[in-house]
């Protein structure tokens, strides 16, 4: 059932804002890759796979935002769209050796997956399980600018902060299920908002630097 929308619904606004932030970051990652890919031979198919992957992630993220807001029962297609899309973005990068599974990435991804642990003891909606995998998948995109030397040392620090904030959010998101939303819920939503803002800033700078030099 659709939740009734009040004239000022902060959770809805924050959800829209999160969706917009994620979409901007994703779009700039795609623009950045469109700068990089023409330098590789026979890269057109890989580029096409990535564009389809990008659109799939975008569709999935917005569907999940809407589901998150309307509290409709989660269709398992939406997280799958994000995960499949993310694989379509990352696998060509791995093939071209532009993506590295470094220690920090593996540690952070593991920590996000371990955030499922409270799920086993606390009663929370089942959509937290696919949601965890979506959070882990988004982490891969957040850390991607670190694998190309297109950020200043400060930019790299910002990406690291963004990725750790993402991990913290994965562990604290259980507080978000409180209804009606409490002050804590709003404060918690500021964590992914800050993380995505830092990520967007870093990705835009990365794109500008690759565009200048390539």
């Amino acid at each position, binding site marked *: 059932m659709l939740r009734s929308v009040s004239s000022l619904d902060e959770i809805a606004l924050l959800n829209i804002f999160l969706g917009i932030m994620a979409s901007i970051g994703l779009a700039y990652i795609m623009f950045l890759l469109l700068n990089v890919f023409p330098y590789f031979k026979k890269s057109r198919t890989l580029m096409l796979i990535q564009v389809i992957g990008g659109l799939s992630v975008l569709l999935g993220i917005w569907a999940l935002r809407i589901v998150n807001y309307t509290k409709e029962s989660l269709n398992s297609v939406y997280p799958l769209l994000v995960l499949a899309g993310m694989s379509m973005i990352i696998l060509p990068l791995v093939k071209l050796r532009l993506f590295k599974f470094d220690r920090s990435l593996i540690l952070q991804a593991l920590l996000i997956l371990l955030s499922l642990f409270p799920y086993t003891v606390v009663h929370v909606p089942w959509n937290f399980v696919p949601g965890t995998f979506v959070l882990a998948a988004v982490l891969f995109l957040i850390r991607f600018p670190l694998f*190309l030397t297109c950020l200043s*040392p400060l930019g790299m620090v910002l990406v690291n902060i963004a990725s750790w904030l993402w991990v913290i959010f994965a562990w604290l998101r259980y507080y978000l299920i409180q209804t009606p939303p409490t002050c804590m819920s709003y404060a918690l939503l500021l964590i992914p908002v800050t993380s995505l803002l830092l990520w967007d800033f870093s990705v835009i700078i990365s794109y500008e630097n690759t565009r200048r*030099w390539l």
Partner: protein
Amino acid sequence: MRIGIPKLDELLGEIELGSTVLIETIGEIGIEIAIEALKRNKEKSAVFLTPRLKKRLEHIFELGEVVYLTLGEDFAPQELFKVTHALRELPEDRFIAVFLIQPLLIFHPSQRVYRFFAELSDIANARGIILMTMIDKRLVDERTLATFEESATHVIDIVEVIQGFKIIRGLRIKKSPKKISGFYKLKIKDGNVEVGELLG
């Protein structure tokens, strides 16, 4: 060899054959210095560059005779051996501008790009070629920058300082067999480079 910018030539002196000149800059500021050197030595110049920069240089009438070797067209980022091979095949006594270091840092780890740069520098030294290249110092850490400086014989350092509402650009000779210098005012207008008075 001389670059063709009077004050800079005075600061650098005659650049010996086999030298490697590294321009440490912010973004692309100072690319005009390399372009000026290419114009002055156009009959014996070659450039390793990206397609975007090639489009820009092709519009400069004075660079008609320059040989271009383009990343993504003549060689892929993974085919660095093609660049070193091409450098070995070029006749001696050449001026080569390599606008590849920063683009390659996007595709490769900095250690690999440094080894590539060191190899280019060695080839240039052995074959009497003058090599000029650029690096965006904002995008590399100080340690990486220092390793690149070590393989260069001359280092030109470009800075940009904001004072009030004015942007002041400066240039100094950071490394040279002759002597190092303080910061001099750098003016770039319509592609023309002018090195002015000593900054305080």
